[in-house]
């Protein structure tokens, strides 16, 4: 992860840039250290290490490789959802329906699976339904001018009702073995679902950092009027963002079902929505839009999963979990704001 963090600052003058006008920063070691240290991801990585060291001191089990893998495995859901939800927040939107889409896609895919639909088609079916919900969110927000928080909250309630209606409140159980093998298996010791999360993360990283679309997303989130004035097609970008957010929520739901072997009506829901948004914000994504990174979201997701794990292993009552998470969330956003005041002249 550190190579990703420092890539931008470490790169020296490239051969084509002999123009004296591109005064390169980051050539001195001190400057490099300053820039890396000023990033939220660095602060977070330090917090992760500190929590890890404390946990290792309290419990011998913590550093066990199975336990470390379990931390990664349980962070997969937060991270996969966080990629779509975080990208949307960077672009100036918000999706509170994610937790219900999680359940909806899991139920849809599972219903198809238990009806003997081939598994790739069933999974695509679940994701397609999620994409449709994302598109509806976009229509309500863009054309009906309902603020994103209201539109997606309304969608959340409606989908929760739908989820319960179509299942009668019963879980869909007995998923085919092939799907459970994907959800529970591993390759060379690395759980499959962690590999899936890595692929999803890389895809989103390239999308955000290395494509026009990613720059347009940041521009819309950073200053919507300016982006539009410069010819960024806001409506198209928004549609893609809401669909991506919904699809990652759906994918997380499908992954979760594959892992546990059933689709649970009570999985997902409002707590999942909030935890994902929390992971994204702790990871340095600004609720004001424009700022944030996939690597930050990854660290945020791992940190939440790590705290969960460390508290259990340290025999600290679970009630403390939410206290700690809440404090970290508030602290992370406050630190981020202070940092931004120092970086930017306005805001």
């Amino acid at each position, binding site marked *: 992860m550190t190579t990703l963090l420092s890539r*931008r600052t470490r790169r020296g003058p*490239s051969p*084509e*840039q002999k*123009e*004296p*006008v*591109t*005064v*390169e*920063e980051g050539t001195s070691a001190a400057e490099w250290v300053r820039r890396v240290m000023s990033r939220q991801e660095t602060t977070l990585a330090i917090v992760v290490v500190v929590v890890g060291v404390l946990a290792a001191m309290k419990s011998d089990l913590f550093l066990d490789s199975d336990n470390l893998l379990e931390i990664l495995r349980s962070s997969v859901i937060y991270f996969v959802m966080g990629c779509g939800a975080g990208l949307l927040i960077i672009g100036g939107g918000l999706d509170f329906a994610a937790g219900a889409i999680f359940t909806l896609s899991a139920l849809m895919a599972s219903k198809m699976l238990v009806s003997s639909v081939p598994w790739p088609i069933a999974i695509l079916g679940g994701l397609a339904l999620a994409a449709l919900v994302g598109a509806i969110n976009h229509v309500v927000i863009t054309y009906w001018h309902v603020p994103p928080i209201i539109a997606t909250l309304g969608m959340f309630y409606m989908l929760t009702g739908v989820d319960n209606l179509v299942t009668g409140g019963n879980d869909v159980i007995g998923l085919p073995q092939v799907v459970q093998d994907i959800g529970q298996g591993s390759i060379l010791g690395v759980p499959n679902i962690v590999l899936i999360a890595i692929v999803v993360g890389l895809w989103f990283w*390239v999308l955000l950092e*290395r*494509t*026009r679309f*990613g*720059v*347009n997303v*940041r*521009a819309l*989130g*950073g*200053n919507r*009027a*300016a*982006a*539009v*004035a*410069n*010819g*960024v*097609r806001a409506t198209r970008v928004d549609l893609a963002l809401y669909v991506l957010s919904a699809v990652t929520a759906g994918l997380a739901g499908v992954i979760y079902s594959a892992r546990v072997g059933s689709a649970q009506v009570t999985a997902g829901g409002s707590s999942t929505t909030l935890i994902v948004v929390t992971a994204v914000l702790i990871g340095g994504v600004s609720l004001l839009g*424009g*700022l944030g990174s996939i690597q930050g979201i990854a660290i945020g997701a791992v940190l939440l999963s790590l705290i969960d794990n460390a508290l259990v292993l340290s025999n600290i009552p679970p009630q403390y979990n939410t206290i700690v998470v809440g404090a970290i969330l508030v602290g992370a956003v406050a630190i981020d704001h202070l940092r931004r005041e120092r*970086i*930017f*002249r*306005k*805001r």
Partner: protein
Amino acid sequence: MAADRATPALQLRGVKKFFGSVSALEDVALDAYAGEVHAIVGDNGAGKSTTIKIITGIHSADEGDVMVQGERMASRRSAADAHEHGVSVVYQDLALVECLDIAHNMALGNLPRKYGVILDRRKMEREAAVVLKELKVRVGNVRTPVGLLSGGQRQVVAIARAVRMDKPIILLDEPTAALGVQETAHVGEIIDELKAAGKAVICVTHDLDFAFKHADKVTVLRLGRSVGTRTVADVSRDEVVGLITGAIPGDTRTAEVA
């Protein structure tokens, strides 16, 4: 005004705009030619900003025509369409994204790509550096976030973006409003260079000194009408001020000016 050098690069005819029952533009006409700096002056509320917004497509005209190189533009269009028609704009609020760096801001809306999908950051940064160097701008690293720049630096970055787009028509909305003496002189030099490069430069300004120093023609707006277009070399400052305030009545019909 008949001495046409081919068709006007930008032409407005009988443009009207209402906001509800309020009439913002009554009748605006304008002919801007390549290789000329055309100033649009007028008091507050004369319709300068509305005129700019209609040209760029942020507002749509209720009546009248906007023609680029003789081609009529659809009244309903987006800012992206204006780009495609060869108009680049420097907005009064600059339209910069603070959290993006200088190079990204300069390329926004027209980001270079390689392999069809991947952002060509090297090309983007090189182009930004070249334009800034041509404009003799010192803003340091093109990777500096715009949020870190001073007002004057931001203004120059916004102009540099329009220059980088390399469109035949450049529109500047109050480019010197927020600038000091030295920065204003610098912007004036850039405008002179754009003119020398054969661009049609249209500059909305309330700064008459600036207009008289750099513009070839000046069109005066008053209460939503273009009340007269004059060649700067042939007109006195008093006459322009008179047209702005209404002390001198405008040309009877703007249509006849053209």
